[in-house]
């Protein structure tokens, strides 16, 4: 439920819109370098830079506010194939993010006893923001925020699909119910609470988007009955909301 609360919250702020321009501000300003010594004895391999974490006091981010040109419910399919962000490891994904913590102004560190270990991740290539506040350690909030980011990426970023030569990717096959006629493996169906559901959900949304929100057309491609696909969509709140906003933009009534 918490995931959905966040998804709903940011749905309002971040339209279903894919941005390709990486903000030019993607320069990590968090490390200040002093003397750069290049030792002669091979030490240089040891001299690593530690700059994975950037931070910023800039709260909102400039790319989030300009939603005027596109209606909130429209998902923009890009002409260029975007990287599939869900395929990145946690570390790689983290490097594409700006991490922000919520804190009052002041010196921090030993000065403060601050129970607020909330974490906010801004995925710079897409402008999508995910946050987590409920855990007691910043470390765990970071992990939760990253999981939420994956869900939001799956929901908001649409990859282009060629319906004429469509072959469902394995991550999609494994979330389909066993009844599906295109399901080749006998492995059990991955349910909505499994983290592996998320990449499958993204691929499913890509198909539904390419089919202009039609459940019947998508179901055919996936070897399912319309009812079977509807049940799958309704099993995950974020998936249901994404499909319904897609349908709303095409003037089709929502699934219930």
């Amino acid at each position, binding site marked *: 439920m918490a995931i959905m609360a966040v998804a709903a919250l940011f749905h309002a702020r971040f339209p279903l819109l894919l941005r390709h321009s990486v903000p030019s501000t993607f320069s990590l300003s968090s490390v200040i370098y002093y*003397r750069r010594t290049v030792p002669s004895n091979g030490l240089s391999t040891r*001299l*690593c*830079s530690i700059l994975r974490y950037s931070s910023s006091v800039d709260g909102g981010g400039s790319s989030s506010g300009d939603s005027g040109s596109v209606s909130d419910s429209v998902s923009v399919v890009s002409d260029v194939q975007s990287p599939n962000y869900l395929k990145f490891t946690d570390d790689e994904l983290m490097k594409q993010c700006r991490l922000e913590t919520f804190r009052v102004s002041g010196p921090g*560190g*030993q000065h403060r006893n601050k129970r607020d270990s909330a974490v906010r991740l801004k995925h710079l290539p897409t402008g999508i923001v995910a946050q987590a506040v409920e855990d*007691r350690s910043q470390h765990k909030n970071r992990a939760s925020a990253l999981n939420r980011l994956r869900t939001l990426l799956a929901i908001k970023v649409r990859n282009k699909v060629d319906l004429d030569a469509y072959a469902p990717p394995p991550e999609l096959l494994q979330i389909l119910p066993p009844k599906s006629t295109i399901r080749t493996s006998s492995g059990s169906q991955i349910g909505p609470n499994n983290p592996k559901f998320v990449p499958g959900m993204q691929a499913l949304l890509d198909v539904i988007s390419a089919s202009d929100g039609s459940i019947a057309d998508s179901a055919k491609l996936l070897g399912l009955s319309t009812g079977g696909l509807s049940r799958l969509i309704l099993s995950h709140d974020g998936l249901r909301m994404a499909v319904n906003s897609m349908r709303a933009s095409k003037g089709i009534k929502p699934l219930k």
Partner: protein
Amino acid sequence: MIRIFPSLRFTSLLSAAKPLCSYSPAREPPQYASFTEAKSSPQTNSLSITPKTPLFLRTPSHATSLSEVWKWHDWAKDLASSVEESSTNSEDILDSVILHRELKWLIEDSIVDDPLVILHKSEIADNGEKNVKLRASLEELYDLWRQRIEKRRPFQYVVGCEHWRDLVLCVEEGVLIPRPETELIVDMVEELVARDEWFKKGFWADLGTGSGAIAIGIAKVLGSSGRVIATDLSPVAIAVAGHNVQRYSLEGMIEVREGSWFEPLKGLEGKLVGLVSNPPYIPSDDIPGLQAEVGRHEPKLALDGGIDGTDSLLHLCHGASRMLQRGGFFVFETNGEKQSKMIVDYMMSNDLKDCFSDLKIVSDFAGINRFVTGFRL
């Protein structure tokens, strides 16, 4: 429960506050021949200190009717909501949103059953006659919550633990509560050892370890071949750190030694591959104005860094040049901004001029220039 006497704490503070001139080999304890032989610390008073058991580890021996617990919860919520009007100093205010979150965590630590039976009273069909098992008596829970709000006792001392990275560390009065910022030190070490296995094999030291947080975090990222020595001047910290090390079954990797800064590291000159510390760095003049939770309850020994806050840091800079081997890494937490720049300048001048390479200032998540890192040349 043994408390460190305030007078003792104050004396220790004085002895720690003059680090630059305090390095006199004659005063330091006898030399340790090797890591394994130095298992016992010369001052053993820490052994007589038994760390407190945090709430979440206590025996759930208090059967209490749900309706009574609900009554306590309603009272605690009201108290948490009422705090904001009563404070005038906006910098040092209790935040009721955070207090409500803490109350939820207090319940999580106190109850064996699902905390939801307390939190979601309206959804429970039960009329409250059922008993739930608590790890503290209701009377104590009233008292603890009053201490939190009226005495501004830090939440972490109230429940006796702090969640830090993926660890749950026992803490109590006399030991600094590890801060979220400091988690980054372990992240930096993790990244370093992932790139260069060399750092996994040698000795690391965490000086002024407090609860043992950094030492434990580092030991976990070093893997089974890692060796960490954690030192602290405070006997309470030594006892608590030792207890935390034990809870994570890291006795084979972390050795906790009592003593001031580098004193317990005799015999390891030029041998460390890594040195980390979150030393006291707050300028003395800032101590009286600290947030109540910090200023009234946390040990001054772990906070007060002398006139400009750099007393211990400067001592650590010199020690780093002596103790690290060639290529060895260090990271120190600082008060930020001005102070981190001062430390870097200091390390690039005078007799430390040719000791370090790649000095860097790394900022924390809030963008404050919090850490100074570098390598021994």
